[in-house]
């Protein structure tokens, strides 16, 4: 166990624990705040995995934007602030069985498949090698090159998708449209 292992294991425990609290807590607002903890720990996991840019995008968009949107949704639907019963539906036992089955299956398969595999991000080069394979690097420079050279078409399509989602959200939340047609 290196220091990196320990840090990643701690961050993973925090992420999974906060995720479990998100789906089990009895207070709506606390669920959103535990979501912040889970996403922050995941950003730390990305940093440990040398994916810096993805980590900061995760902090900006998930912790900054998505959780704030969810909190807005909680407030606008007039959710009870205190602990409230009845946040879980009747099929809680079936959901627990399905989730436990999913977890057991996935963990078993992944551990059996990747038991001895070490993360291969820092190649060992002999000192007399002329060219060393590139070290894994998730900095903004490398990712920007990849996005704007190789993946530029999906990137542009994604911007159209965002525009469509924006227009759709505006159309859905405008009040006048549907009622005017009905009358």
């Amino acid at each position: 166990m290196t220091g990196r292992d320990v840090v990643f294991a701690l961050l993973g425990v925090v992420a999974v624990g906060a995720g479990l609290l998100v789906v089990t807590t009895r207070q709506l607002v606390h669920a959103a705040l535990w979501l912040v903890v889970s996403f922050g720990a995941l950003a730390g996991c990305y940093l440990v995995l040398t994916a810096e840019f993805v980590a900061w995008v995760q902090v900006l968009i998930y912790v900054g934007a998505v959780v704030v949107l969810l909190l807005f949704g909680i407030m606008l639907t007039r959710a009870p602030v205190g602990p409230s019963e009845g946040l879980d539906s009747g099929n809680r036992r079936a959901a627990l069985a399905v989730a436990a089955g999913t977890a057991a299956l996935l963990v078993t398969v992944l551990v059996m498949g990747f038991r001895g595999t070490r993360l291969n991000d820092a190649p060992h080069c002999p000192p007399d090698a002329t060219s060393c394979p590139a070290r894994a690097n998730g900095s903004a420079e490398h990712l920007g090159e990849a996005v704007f050279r190789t993946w530029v078409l999906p990137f542009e399509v994604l911007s159209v998708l965002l525009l469509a989602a924006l227009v759709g959200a505006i159309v859905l939340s405008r009040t006048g449209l549907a009622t005017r047609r009905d009358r």
Partner: protein
Amino acid sequence: MHLAFPLVTAALLFSAGVYGVLARRNAILVLMAVELMLNAVNLNLVAFDVHLRDRLHGGQVLTLFTIVIAAAEVGLGLAIVLLVFRNRRVIDVDRLRSLAESEPSGSSDPSGPPPAEPEREAVQ
């Protein structure tokens, strides 16, 4: 570091998301659980991108795209949830049964009159 660490973490997060989607009845909590599942997939993508040292950075770029799509999804999802709340005054997913065949008188009529004006103003 073993590759199994991020993979097992992602699998457990995904299972928590599955439990949340199936067990919660508040629509906003269901959206949160969906976000958990998307994040588990992102962790897998980043871990394999770093492990395979992809020269095109396909995994991390796809992670960025997934984050953008998740943001669009949660925006649209919340708009729909707010619309349902404005029309029905309830966002419990197991009480929205007007598309089910049985229990025709279960919830409010979908073509019924919208609620009173002052409430609609207050919701916005």
